[in-house]
């Protein structure tokens, strides 16, 4: 059964008064970033979303998460139309977005606190999650006492605290160094293997997209739409060595092949990028 259905989603941003962009040679104060996105995601599936800068990947994630309203079309979560953040959805951001005045433990507890979970239960859950991510002993650290990789582990743990059925991840590992990044990819797969939640993962890295995904969704340049969906038929559980395999290289070539034209188009569109980057 399809857990998430994205149906003909479009999104147009109105620029601030006085701001203009050039679209197809004409000045305009509106930017269309998504235009007719259709996507059906199955329960427990791991989807990665790749596309050139400005193809609206993050905006699409925000719309699925109920954080931004679409201009047209609709998103359904288990058959229900999404208009605001759904308790069944967890969100992980590139910049961690941990509350700096809360300790690691209290950050994870927050997700349960706002859902009205009793103190004893949320502490127990948070401790369990920290140990699941190998962070036992770091309960009382504030975010700025943790490395980037540790902070992102806490952020993922926080998103998982409410036991979400859908996990939305917006370039979560982009700010990390390569080693930490690969380490966390492995950890994410290990934990996902246990809880089998549905994941939508936005990334710029083709390797990351292939390594993690059941299916890689390639977006077009702005205005974004689904260009192609590539099934990744690699055995699970996967470990890092798989990156060197022939199959992996074939997928790499395939994804890049689909993506190349769009990246070229996006490059020509560079005048636009500062206007709606956020």
């Amino acid at each position, binding site marked *: 059964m399809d857990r998430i259905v994205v149906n003909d989603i479009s999104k147009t941003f109105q620029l601030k008064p006085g701001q203009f962009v050039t679209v197809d040679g004409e000045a305009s104060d509106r930017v269309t970033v998504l235009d007719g996105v259709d996507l059906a995601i199955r329960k427990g599936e791991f989807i990665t979303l790749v596309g050139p800068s400005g193809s609206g990947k993050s905006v699409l994630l925000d719309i699925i*998460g109920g*954080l931004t309203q679409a201009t047209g079309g609709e998103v359904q979560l288990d058959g229900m139309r999404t208009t605001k*953040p*759904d*308790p069944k*959805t*967890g*969100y992980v*951001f590139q*910049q961690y*977005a941990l*509350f*700096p*005045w*809360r300790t690691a433990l209290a950050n994870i507890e*927050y*997700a349960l*606190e*706002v*859902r009205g979970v009793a103190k004893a239960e949320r502490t127990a859950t948070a401790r369990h999650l920290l140990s699941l991510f190998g962070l036992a002993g770091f309960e009382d650290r*504030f975010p*700025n*006492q*943790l*490395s980037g990789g*540790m902070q992102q582990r806490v952020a993922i743990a*926080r998103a998982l605290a*409410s036991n979400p059925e859908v996990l939305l991840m917006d370039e979560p590992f982009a700010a990390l160094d390569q080693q930490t990044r690969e380490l966390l990819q492995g950890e994410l797969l290990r934990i996902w293997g246990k809880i089998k939640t549905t994941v939508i993962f936005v990334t710029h890295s083709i390797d990351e997209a292939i390594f993690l995904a059941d299916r890689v969704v390639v977006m077009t340049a702005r205005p974004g739409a689904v260009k192609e969906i590539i099934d990744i038929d690699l055995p699970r559980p996967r470990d890092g060595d798989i990156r060197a395999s022939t199959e992996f290289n074939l997928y790499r070539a395939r994804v890049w092949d689909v993506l190349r034209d769009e990246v070229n188009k996006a490059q020509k569109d560079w005048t636009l990028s500062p206007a709606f980057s956020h």
Partner: protein
Amino acid sequence: MAYLTEKLGPAIGFRSAAGEAAVSTNVPAIKTRGVAAGAKVRGKGAHAGTFLYGLPLLGLFFLAWEIAPRLGWLNRIFFPPLSEVLIAWWALLASGVLVEHIGISLQRAAIGFALGVVVAIPLGLLMGRYALFEKVSDLLVQTLRNTSQFALLPVFILLLGIGEESKVAITFYSSVFFLLVNTISGVKSVDPLLIKAARSMGTSDFDLFRKVILPASIPSIVAGARLAVKSSLFAVIGAEMLAAKSGLGFLIQNSQLMMETADMYAGILTLTVIGLTVNYLLVWFERWATAWKGQSESSLI
């Protein structure tokens, strides 16, 4: 937004003046201690360090105060030697008069400040969060903020009488705008990503204020509170000099009228000591309340 920078300008400028002691104390300690174990240890070392450095010059100042009147460089009647001032101070303390005056002044300042907190923080949270609310109220706030509290003392006396109410009113007026302006700027500088993250977890509007915006604004609010406390202390002394029959301001003013200059200086010195103590208490409070900010030295990797 021009109106924001205009408001922040004076508040921040003022802050650095008031916070000088706090800022400068950190520097030598960090250097001497190198990789200290924790923020608290560093703080203590810093105090002792600057205190010792500053002591000789302060001692020289007191020495001059003692000698100059005795040598006839200053008129002893207007400027008694320090030792005479300290004797007068001891007499005032022993008789219980001083404690009474201190108590009444602090009480007035505290009530005014507390009212300021109760009014300014909720108002500031709303003004910082809702643009329309701020646009509507900003001009009135600016107008009131730039009216001297001392100019308003006659108004307070007319409206509230010569008693406690008018003193509390002036201390309230002196503190509320520092708190308000800093709360607004604190709210405005909350990282939008934190608000997005909170919303993604289904945080209600009320919880968003309580659990995200308020704690994120605490450093700014506490900085405003430091200014507000000082300002309400100064205001109460001024008000007591102009219209009161008790309090430290009254003691100083009355001693001058009676030509009891030793008592007058004793009152002034008492004020200085209170000011210094309150400042250090607030610096300590600020560090405690924002402990989560400055511990990155001990971060891992």
